[in-house]
C-alpha cells in the first residue's frame, strides 16, 4: 500500500491529463471526491446515487482512469496486476506458459478462430506464444522493481497504447480460454467446479469452449467487453480476486462485488465501474502498514519512550 506522500509524488511525476489526450492508457491518480463532483453535477436520482457511491470510498482510494475502449476491463486488471503484484503467481512460476498455445492447438482447433487487434506476419499460435512470453517477462520485471518510481515508470512504458500493451491483453484472453477449456472438461467429468462455470456455459451462445470463443471471447476488445461471469473467469484464470465497486449498485448488496466470489484473496485487485461497462482503477489512499501476513507493522521505538501492548 502506498502512503499519501507517494501518491502525491506520483501525480507530480505524471501530471494528470485526460486519457485520450496523451498516449497513456492509464491516467495519473486523482482524488475521487473532486472527480465525482466535477463529473456528476446536478440532482437527478442517478447523479445523487453515483456521487453517494463515490463519497463512500473517497477517503480510502484514489482514481486512475483507464482508456475507454472494449479492452478496458482487461486493461484495468492488467494494470493492477503489474502495479500491485508482490510476487509471480505459482501458476506462472511453475510453468512455461508460452508452450500453452501449441499444446491447445494440438488438442483442438481453436486458435484458428483467434482475432488480433494488430497485423502479424507470424502464425496465430506463434503470436500467442509471443504474447504469453511477454506477459511472463513483464510480470517478472514488475515484481522485481526496486522502487515505487521504477515500477510506475515500467507501467507507464507498457500502458502507452502500443502493440505491446495489446499483446499483453490478448495474453490474458488466451489464459481465460485455456481455463474455460479446463473447467468445461472438469464439468463433463462431474468434478467440482466454481459456481460461475455453470453460468458461463449455461448461455445459449456459449455452451462449450468453442462457442465461448467464437461468440464471446474473440470479440472482447473489438465489439464488446467482458460480461460479469467473464470477469469471474478472468479472476479465476489469474488466481486473483477482482473486487469491483459498482457505483450504480450503491444502496444494494452488490455495491461491492467480488469476481469470483467463492474464495477471497487477501489482496484483491480493486476496480471501479459506474455501469458495469467501463472500468477504472482504484489505488489505496491511506492505510495502516501491514506486513505480508496481515500483522500491523510497528516502527522501532523513538526517544526511549515505551510502547507497550497489554493483553486483557
Amino acid at each position, binding site marked *: 500500500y502506498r502512503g499519501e506522500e507517494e501518491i502525491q509524488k506520483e501525480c507530480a511525476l505524471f501530471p494528470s491529463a485526460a486519457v485520450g489526450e496523451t498516449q497513456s492508457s492509464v491516467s495519473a491518480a486523482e482524488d475521487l471526491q473532486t472527480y465525482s463532483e466535477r463529473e456528476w453535477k446536478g440532482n437527478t436520482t442517478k447523479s445523487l446515487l453515483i456521487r*453517494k*457511491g463515490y*463519497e*463512500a*470510498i*473517497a*477517503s*480510502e482510494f484514489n482514481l486512475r482512469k483507464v482508456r475507454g475502449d472494449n479492452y478496458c476491463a482487461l486493461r484495468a486488471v492488467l494494470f493492477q496486476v503489474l502495479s500491485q503484484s508482490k510476487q509471480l503467481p505459482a501458476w506462472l512460476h511453475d510453468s512455461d506458459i508460452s508452450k500453452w498455445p501449441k499444446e491447445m492447438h494440438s488438442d483442438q482447433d481453436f486458435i484458428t478462430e483467434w482475432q488480433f487487434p494488430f497485423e502479424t506476419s507470424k502464425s496465430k499460435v506463434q503470436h500467442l506464444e509471443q504474447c504469453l512470453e511477454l506477459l511472463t517477462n513483464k510480470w517478472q520485471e514488475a515484481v522485481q522493481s526496486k522502487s515505487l518510481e521504477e515500477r510506475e515508470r515500467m507501467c507507464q512504458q507498457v500502458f502507452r497504447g502500443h502493440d505491446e500493451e495489446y499483446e499483453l491483453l490478448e495474453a490474458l484472453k488466451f489464459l481465460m480460454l485455456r481455463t474455460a477449456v479446463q473447467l468445461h472438461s472438469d464439468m463433463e467429468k462431474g468434478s467440482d467446479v466454481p459456481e460461475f462455470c455453470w453460468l458461463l456455459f449455461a448461455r445459449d451462445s456459449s455452451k462449450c469452449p468453442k462457442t465461448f470463443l467464437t461468440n464471446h471471447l474473440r470479440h472482447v476488445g473489438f465489439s464488446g467487453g467482458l460480461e460479469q461471469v467473464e470477469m469471474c473467469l478472468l479472476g479465476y484464470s489469474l488466481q486473483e480476486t477482482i473486487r469491483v465497486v459498482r457505483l450504480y449498485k*450503491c*444502496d*444494494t448488496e452488490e*455495491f*461491492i462485488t467480488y469476481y469470483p466470489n467463492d474464495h477471497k484473496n487477501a489482496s484483491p485487485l480493486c476496480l471501479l465501474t459506474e455501469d458495469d461497462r467501463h472500468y477504472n482503477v482504484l489505488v489505496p489512499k*491511506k492505510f*495502516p*502498514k*501491514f506486513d505480508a501476513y496481515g500483522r*500491523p*507493522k*510497528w*516502527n522501532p*521505538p*523513538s*526517544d526511549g*519512550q*515505551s*510502547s*507497550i*501492548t*497489554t*493483553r*486483557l
Partner: protein
Amino acid sequence: MSFIPGHPVTAVVQRIEIHKLRDGDNLILGFSIGGGIDQDPSQNPFSEDKTDKGIYVTRVSKGGPAEVAGLRMGDKIMQVNGWDMTMVTHDQARKKLTKKNEDVVRLLVTRKSLENAVRQSMMQH
C-alpha cells in the same frame, strides 16, 4: 451507529458490550490494547494522526468475548463504562477495563474502514 459531525465520512462510532469470560480467578476480555498519554504514539499503525495518544485495540483473540461483542483490531477506545479514554495513561486504561467486580464493560469505539463506509452509504437516505 451514529456519525461524528466534522469527522471524515468513514469514521463511525460503535457501542460494544463485552461480557468477560471467567477463567478461574481471572476475567478475560480477549483483546489487547496499545497507546496512552505516556506511550509513544508514532508506533501506532492504526491512527491517522501520528500524535494521537489514544487507546487502540491492537489484537482481538479469535472467538473471545471481545470478538463476539464486535470489537475489531484498529478500533480506538473512546470510553469504558462512561469513563473517558482519550486522555489516560496506558495503565489507567488497563485498570478501567479490568475491574474485578465488573463482568461487563461497555465500550464506545471509533472505527475507520471501507466496510463501514459501505454500510454507511447504504444507511444514509
